[in-house]
């Protein structure tokens, strides 16, 4: 709008704009056109968690991806190591992308360790985007494949000491 009579107000950034900024930084969505990305940003939701709240439960088919805006969460496995936290996820991390493309069972439980705010996206909604922008599927697939290769590469180099057990399980990128 060009009118100069409109007075400048302190703008609050809309949630949509904020989501769009976040998504643009994420590897998982890097292949998406701006049009598709806008739609994804529009379909995202914000969710707050208190410490101890579950983001998802082991064996659940929740089909949700999370981006952590603030706070920290940790994954555990039921009946293993007394439910100790195996790994933590922090501000700025994106997880659960795979759940957006296939109906999968969670192998972990994800629990909020502090107060958290997340941007969430569900598979049902993401599927709608894929229906509208079919070319996205191929790009997402590529991103996932690349991630698998990178992951196994890291596994092979960093986990060399564990090679006795891991060696037998190698070949994830040969899927």
């Amino acid at each position, binding site marked *: *709008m*060009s*009118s100069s*009579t*409109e007075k400048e*107000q*302190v*703008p*609050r*950034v*809309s*949630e*949509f*704009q904020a*989501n769009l900024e976040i998504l643009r930084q994420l590897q998982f969505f890097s292949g998406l056109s701006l*049009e598709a990305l*806008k*739609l994804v940003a*529009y*379909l995202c*939701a*914000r*969710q*707050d968690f208190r410490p101890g*709240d*579950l983001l998802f439960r082991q*064996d*659940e*088919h929740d089909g949700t991806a999370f981006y952590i805006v603030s706070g920290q969460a940790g994954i555990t496995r039921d009946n293993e190591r007394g439910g100790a936290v195996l790994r933590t996820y922090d501000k700025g991390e994106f997880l659960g992308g795979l759940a957006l493309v296939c109906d999968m*069972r969670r192998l972990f439980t994800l629990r909020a360790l502090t107060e958290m705010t997340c941007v*969430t996206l569900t598979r*049902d*909604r993401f599927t*709608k985007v894929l*229906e*509208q922008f*079919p070319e996205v599927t191929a790009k997402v697939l590529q991103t996932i494949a690349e991630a698998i290769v990178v992951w196994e590469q890291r596994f092979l180099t960093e986990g060399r000491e564990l090679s006795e057990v891991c060696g037998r399980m190698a070949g994830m990128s040969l899927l």
Partner: protein
Amino acid sequence: MERTDLPVSRRPLSSWILASGLKPQALLLFIILIMVFVRVLPLELQKRIVNEAIRAGAMRLLFIYCGLYLAAVLVASGLRYLINVLQNAIGERALAQMRKELYHFILTLPLAFFRKTQPGMVVSALVTELASAGDFVGMAIAVPVTSVLTLFAFAGYLLWLNPLLAVISLGVYPMVFVVLPQLQNRANVANKHRVDITRTLSSRIGEAITGIHEIQGNGSFRLENRRFDDLVDGLFKIRITWNLYRFAVKVCNNLFNNLSPFLVFIVGGYLAIKGRLDLGALVAFLSAQEKLYDPWRDLVDFYQTYQDARVRYRRTMEYFDGVPDHVLEPDKRKPHDLEGSVEVKDLSFVAEGGIQLLDRINLSLRPGEHLALIGFSGSGKSTLAQCIGQLYKYTSGHILFGGKEVAELSKRDMICNMGFVSQDPFTFDGTIRENLLYACASRVEGNGCGASEVLPSVDEMIAVLQQTGIFVDVLRFGLNAVLAHDEHLDLATKIIRVREKFRRQYGGQLSDFVEFLEESRYLYYANIAANLTFGSPNRPSFSVENLPTNKYFLRFLDEISLTSPLLQVGGEICTQTVDILGSLPPDPVFFEQSPIAPEELDDYRQLAERLQRAGLTSLAAADHQRLLELALRFTPGTHKMVALSEPLEELLLRGRIRFREKIATDDPGAFSFYKSSDYIYSQSILDNILFGKAKTVISSVEEKINQSIIQVLIEEDLLETIVEIGMEFQVGTMGDKLSGGQKQKLAIARVLLKAPRLLILDEATSALDNRSQARIQGLVDTKLKGTTTLIAVVHRLDIIRNYDKIAVMKAGRIGELGTYEELIARKGILYELVYGKGAGP
């Protein structure tokens, strides 16, 4: 109504004439006879007017004859109208009958038929193609009889007037009989073609629409366009040819008709000049001859309609010429009451094209035993279930259900004793209650099954809703219902009580998730209009959609200088939403967070363009109105594309106070302000209980709120009332307002309500999450074990332990059959499926 034994698809067109009822046809004939007489009368009067009245100068006679003439004409028109009405009624009744019987018949055709048939094909057959056959039945007696009789009457009159002239002028018609049929035959050939191409065309359209994701996914527009265009071109050509012949028939007919006056003028003129024919007779002759044209044309039209109807009717019926696999009703006996045993012996099923889907299957189940069918897709497990459920007719071997051969049982025998839940159960347009009762209602309808034929009670329905785990969903639908004003007064007061109790017990706990209505705070989950007025309107002129044109309200906005900021917000929303939603289809997922409804998107898109070109201030008043409408709908908690600025928020809060003062003096009854002691009729039951809005739609939060509300509803004994309201929820066409899981649960609920002896579940829980699946499996293991024979096609191996028998299918055969423990101990196929290939225990 007369009925023949032939299936409807084999009945000749003429049979419908008889079926249309002899009484109306006879009445029609009678009226026709009168009319023919009344039609000939004016001719004689005409002659007499000229010869007796005018020539003789007898004024009195002139008046009498003219009076009679007028009367004859009026009566003839009246009768004509009557005939048309009758004819039409007969035709429409025949058409309705044809449609009904064909539809009833089509529904019974084997499933294989529908795999090859596009829905569009059936639609066009029932809706358009049969129409001409109906027309024909209406005309079938009336038109030919009227025309032929009138023709004979006029011809007779002509002969009586002057035999020579008559013979000459009628001599033309026999020639027509030679030429016309030949032209018509060609038109028929073209018409047959046309019907075929139209059919291919409609199934192509149907296919493209159903497979649109594939077309867009592959970008195969050109390919599809070419295929379609070729068909349309073909149709174009054939229609032109068809019409060429049809017009040729008409023109040819006209030509012959116009030739005969020519002959009359030549010969009659000659005779008149010679004084061998009086002038009155010539006038009468000419007009009688002219009148020959009408019945003749009717006759030719009838001939054309008949030919067209015949071709279309034949073509349509040929298409549906199949034989249902099973008879619908038992022959002169009550439906069997079958024991729940199943015995399969040497069962094979060969599909069209010689593909062997099932190969010598043997198994047996005692009443109440449970069988799980597992195996890879394509192994034939679903086919086996469908054969046992009589959905397919097996090609050899036997299936004995309660000792009776399934292939020979009637459909009613089956539905009285068996329940089937398919992979993607279909939910029909209607309420939850109607869908829940679908299986029971179809058993009760018609002849019934004997015994106790009553529909289940509400309590029974609620029980199955709970068992299948869809209870909370239905409750939710009930909570989201909006009560009609002044109805359920009793319920409204009770809900106020629930509201108080809920606030006391859970208010603090849920304050993070619920935005309670508070007069001093801005409501992010209510729209701007509600924020300003803080109440629900009691007059239509103050409803959100009417506020932008409500002068009083607009003046108020100007007074508190809100007009311009609101327009700005409206403009921003418009631009952003149009930008995001672009040209997306009207999927509810895209529009649930949009203040613009799907049907308005086009208008707002154009508005957004004007806004960008001209700027906000130079827009027309109508555009301003539409932007204001958007702004008033804006709910920051839901519509996330735009943020609500702080200054505007403050402005609106101040406006709220001003508005209340103003309306209190000007029009106190216009609004009911939100008060915790009043029921708010413009809002849902849920919002009334919360006295506010739930902030998120996230399931865990929703569950927390649900749990708390259910608790209070139980305490206040209102739970069932709300669920009953929820059962009136309209599920939408094909149940599109329900999720896949909800549809499956509903399908299982409706079969449980029916409580059949034999239950077949064909991957009936595939769309359910773990917990729901476990719940249903629990139900199967406890409630159905020993009472209901169960055959379940299962794709998940973690739920099969408790089945009495497990059949592992492989390539159309049973690879293994036994209990879970037996099969695992055998270390065969099941073991491999469960533990993976080559894995150690």
